[in-house]
């Protein structure tokens, strides 16, 4: 397709690279631009005026600004999975093949049928929706809300996974500088020369800030030359880092700053192995905010017509991009700075239609310029704009004194003064203060270590920017102790800044305050009339300042109008609270690497790769991957595999990796005394070479965790925790050791990763172990009784620890070997156990056997059960102080009608049980009063050949044998179950002691 000619591009000038032409598409049409353009400047160069539609009325909108404060020119950038809604054309860097589309319009930008909303605009005033759509109630979700939702919103998200990658990084410096304008560069010079570590962040791709468009003379040379010399000097300083395409968006406690680096957004897609964007956490001792100021609009009728543009943006397009937003320009200003646009436009050979200046004291120099160039200077204000989606045609002016005038122009530059960029300085709830001479809020109460300099501090002159920036940089370097010479500060003259306050020109037609959200001056008046007088109420009622530009161009004008109608001063009215981020930041960047399978780290057991070779099915348990079962060829479902594994253990021998248990070495002369305080039962009297089951409470008396702890030496216990609580228990024990009982001589170390631990269970366990263990080790009951624990030698010279403990209820040992031998151990167990039919089993079979044995686990240790609830009330020592002992005695924890652990089995042996069913007394109607508990754990018991379960039931232990009702409306099931002893299998425990 043929590229459209760049009809609005100047023959020469600008910071674009004319040797690097680029093609791009907007709404399906192909255009040409240059390297160094933004999408906005390239559209302007091609004479495109209509770029978007507004939020509520779908009014045609053009380009208002040249930066990240842009409210209007939002596009969907890129296509497919990379589509980015609401992208500001003013900051999107042009690249070859760029595709963008206008948004919030249908069927097309030029002929947007949603613009019918404008017909209803007399009704669609601020907050109209709070007053209607209430009847009939059902209609809200069915009709009104879907219509509102479809009409609202702006661009469309891609709707499919973001194909690009993001990462996050840390940086550290003495002095962090936001902005590379004159103040920022001067600050970097001073700090860098002093020897400080400096990071300077600039959101633009080009460095120089307003110098890029406004130029000026610094140290006797043109600004561009000074900038390049300065950058050259900074490049020689080893600890000065300049980061362009990087926006400092937030400041957090302790001098931590958030920044977003758009690493590859200027390319069609990131190169292989590279990220799209990078989130920086920058730790800085000092921060100099040299983020500049934002020019503010004046509110008048038709001020949203495409072709009405901020004066500074207008000259930026002309000077920096050699693109002409208009050929015949009118300027509406209330301050001196606006006139720069006139100078720039004249310099580029453009026509000036008129200057409308609200000030009475236009300087003689400006009047002379006007006379020379032949345009009128009108004292007054713009009252209206004639034009439409194709731009401005005519401007009507009310002259001071009441007369009216009209001027023909195709572009209107507007300057209502400048607002320092107070975002960063205000994010810790510092409220900016009003400075009368510039009629703007300036930073106050900045977070510790942060200062503002230059325009961000309300100093608008070039000389002041340089001197403030330099002084701030030097001071910021000094406080962390860098006292090198900062050298000579750069100097420049200061321009005069004179301004006559003007916020709003009364007139006919809609006058916009917040362009994107279509908030007009009359909306603000209405809100005030209805009592929304607090500036925060105003914001919430009208949505002023809540659009994607975060009110950068609208907030101050809005509160000024509110102040005027409520008869208060602007400082009395105050600002809303400033909220980070300074510019919107992609959610993907905050996530960085942590998405998809990398969302969280993964922990693998020592036998993981062996299990994977066996085709094990894995389950996520916290961060762990655990073998859930080991399917074999021909098995039709998990239940068949699990049933086989259980039967194999109960009849022969099997093993299971239990390395995920938390393991803690408890050392020291007071180790026993320490354990006595953290467990409800006593451990100081445990013999060396023995293990004991222990239960811990929280201080509020509820059960915290359980596990077995063995005494390996007089001053060495080996404590185990549940898999889930390994980390929290370690932290809790360290708290007990360091804070509660510091007088005890005890040391704790996590050895969870040091040991590969396996449970070997089944009647043939000893037979299998004998093949592995050194023949000199006696494993018979007399030498190694139930709950014995000691180190043994394995064949081949490896040392292992053996614990005669059983979770399955079978004759069983747990064996620990140093973790790097874990893989070898399972392979050797398989080899040695082949003759016994050894069977690896997973967590499902482990769970089945623990339910058969009535052992409590996660579903019962749910943080709301007491030791007595779990059937362990008698373990609670009455002879010692331990964590939780007092609160466990409170009346409700000791009540007779508590829900306690009991077994359940269906009266119909074929019936399947499900966890989460409620227990209702037989014959009672299910209801909140009749629910007496719920089913916590269920399994199919191969041993009993039926489903069984555990439940927490009121007075359950007194009701063994009672038939109750399992009520499960969620799954449409109701059936009878019998309450029974929770120990379904070998209640005497003969097998595990055998």
């Amino acid at each position, binding site marked *: 397709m043929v590229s459209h000619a760049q009809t609005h591009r100047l023959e020469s000038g600008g910071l674009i690279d004319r040797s690097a032409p680029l093609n791009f598409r907007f709404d399906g049409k192909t255009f040409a631009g240059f390297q160094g353009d933004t999408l906005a400047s390239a559209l302007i160069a091609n004479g495109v005026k209509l770029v978007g539609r507004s939020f509520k009325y779908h009014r045609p909108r053009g380009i208002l600004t040249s930066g990240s404060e842009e409210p209007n020119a939002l596009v969907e950038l890129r296509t497919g999975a990379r589509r980015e809604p609401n992208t500001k054309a003013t900051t999107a860097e042009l690249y070859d093949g760029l595709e963008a589309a206008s948004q919030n319009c249908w069927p097309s930008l030029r002929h947007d049928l949603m613009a019918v909303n404008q017909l209803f605009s007399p009704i669609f005033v601020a907050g109209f929706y709070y007053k209607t759509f209430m009847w009939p109630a059902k209609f809200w979700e069915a009709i009104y809300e879907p219509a509102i939702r479809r009409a609202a919103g702006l661009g469309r998200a891609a709707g499919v996974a973001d194909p690009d990658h993001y990462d996050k990084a840390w940086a550290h410096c003495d002095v962090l500088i936001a902005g590379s304008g004159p103040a920022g560069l001067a600050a970097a010079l001073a700090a860098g020369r002093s020897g400080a570590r400096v990071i300077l962040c600039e959101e633009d791709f080009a460095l120089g800030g307003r110098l890029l468009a406004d130029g000026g003379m610094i140290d006797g040379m043109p600004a561009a030359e000074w900038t390049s010399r300065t950058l050259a000097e900074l490049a020689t300083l080893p600890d000065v880092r300049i980061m362009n395409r990087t926006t400092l968006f937030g400041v*957090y*406690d*302790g*001098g*931590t700053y958030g920044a977003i680096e758009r690493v590859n957004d200027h390319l069609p897609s990131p190169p292989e192995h590279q990220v799209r964007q990078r989130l920086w*956490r920058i*730790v800085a001792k000092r921060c100099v905010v040299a983020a500049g100021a934002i020019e503010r609009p004046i509110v008048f009728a038709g001020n949203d017509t495409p072709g009405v543009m901020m004066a500074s943006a207008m000259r930026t397009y002309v000077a920096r991009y050699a693109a002409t937003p208009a050929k015949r320009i009118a300027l509406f200003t209330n301050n001196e700075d606006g006139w720069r646009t006139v100078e720039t436009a004249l310099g580029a050979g453009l026509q000036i239609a008129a200057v409308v200046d609200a000030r009475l004291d236009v300087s003689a120099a400006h009047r002379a310029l006007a006379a020379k160039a032949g345009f009128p200077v009108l004292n007054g204000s713009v009252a209206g704009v004639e034009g439409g989606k194709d731009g401005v045609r005519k401007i009507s002016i009310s002259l001071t004194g009441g007369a009216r005038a009209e001027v023909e122009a195709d572009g209107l530059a507007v300057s209502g003064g400048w607002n320092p960029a107070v975002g960063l300085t205000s994010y*810790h709830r510092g409220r900016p203060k009003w400075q009368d001479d510039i009629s703007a809020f300036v930073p106050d109460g900045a977070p*510790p270590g942060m200062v503002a300099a230059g325009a961000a501090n309300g100093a608008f002159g070039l000389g002041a920017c340089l001197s403030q920036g330099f002084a701030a940089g030097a001071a910021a370097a000094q406080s962390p102790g860098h006292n090198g010479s900062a050298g000579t500060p750069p100097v420049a003259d200061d321009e005069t800044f004179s301004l006559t306050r003007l916020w709003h020109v009364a007139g006919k037609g809609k006058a916009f305050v917040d362009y994107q959200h279509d908030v007009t001056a009359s909306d603000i008046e209405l809100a005030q009339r209805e009592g929304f007088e607090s500036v925060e109420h105003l914001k919430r009622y009208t949505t002023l300042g809540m659009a994607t530009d975060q009110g950068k161009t609208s907030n101050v004008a809005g509160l000024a109008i509110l102040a005027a109608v409520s008869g208060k001063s602007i400082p009395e009215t105050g600002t809303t609270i400033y909220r980070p981020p300074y510019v919107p930041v992609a959610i993907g960047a905050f996530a960085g690497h942590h998405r998809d399978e990398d969302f969280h780290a993964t922990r693998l057991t020592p036998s993981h790769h062996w299990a994977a070779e066996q085709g094990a099915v894995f389950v996520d348990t916290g961060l762990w991957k655990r073998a859930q079962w080991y399917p074999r060829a021909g098995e039709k479902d998990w239940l068949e595999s699990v049933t086989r594994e259980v039967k194999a253990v109960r009849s022969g021998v099997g093993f299971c990796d239990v390395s995920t248990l938390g393991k803690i070495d408890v050392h020291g002369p007071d180790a026993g005394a320490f354990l006595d305080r953290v467990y409800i039962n006593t451990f100081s009297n445990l013999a060396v070479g023995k293990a004991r089951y222990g239960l811990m409470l929280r*201080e*509020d008396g509820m059960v915290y965790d359980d596990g077995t702890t063995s005494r390996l030496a007089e001053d060495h216990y080996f404590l185990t925790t549940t898999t889930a609580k390994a980390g929290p228990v370690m*932290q809790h024990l*360290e*708290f007990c*050791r*360091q*804070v*509660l*009982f*510091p007088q*005890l001589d005890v040391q704790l170390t996590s050895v969870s990763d040091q040991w590969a631990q396996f449970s070997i269970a089944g009647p043939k366990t000893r037979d299998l172990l004998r093949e592995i263990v050194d023949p000199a080790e006696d494993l018979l009951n007399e030498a190694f009784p139930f709950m014995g624990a000691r180190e043994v030698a394995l064949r081949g010279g490896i040392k292992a620890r053996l614990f005669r403990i059983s979770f399955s209820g079978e004759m069983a040992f747990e064996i620990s070997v140093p973790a790097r031998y874990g893989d070898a151990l399972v392979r050797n167990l398989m080899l040695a156990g082949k003759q016994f039919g050894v069977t690896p089993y997973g967590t499902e079979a482990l769970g089945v056997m623990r339910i058969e044995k009535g052992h409590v686990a996660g579903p019962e240790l749910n943080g709301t059960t007491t030791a007595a609830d779990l059937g362990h009330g008698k373990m609670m020592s009455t002879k*010692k*102080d331990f964590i939780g002992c*007092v*609160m466990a*005695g*409170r009346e409700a924890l000791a009540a007779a009608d508590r829900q306690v652990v009991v077994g359940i089995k269906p009266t119909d042996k074929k019936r399947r049980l499900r966890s989460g069913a409620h227990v209702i007394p037989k014959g009672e109607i299910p209801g909140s009063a009749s629910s007496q508990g719920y089913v916590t754990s269920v399994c199919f018991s191969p041993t009993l050949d039926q489903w069984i379960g555990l439940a927490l039931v009121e007075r359950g232990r007194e009701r063994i044998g009672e038939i109750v009702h399992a009520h499960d409306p969620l799954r449409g099931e109701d059936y009878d179950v019998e309450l029974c002893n929770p120990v379904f299998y070998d209640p005497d425990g003969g097998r595990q002691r055998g």
Partner: protein
Amino acid sequence: MRIVCPFCGERELGEFSYLGDAKPVRPAAGAPEDDVFDYVYLRDNIAGAMSEHWYHAGGCRAWLKITRNTLTHEISSVEPAAGAGAAEVGA
């Protein structure tokens, strides 16, 4: 937030975990139930400088007693818990 661990130096917030008010002291064995209730449940919930227990979980595993202003998050002092670094005790 950044915390200057007395053992490790300045570290970022993510390395630490929080327990809460360090003022309540665990009553000695045999204390009345009301005292224990007070220790476990009641809080001054100070708006201002507050003494707190933090744990350098992602670092040296020391429990710390930190004075921090709950209105500004400013940290004015950090000291180890009595049992952190106890090798010097009595030595």
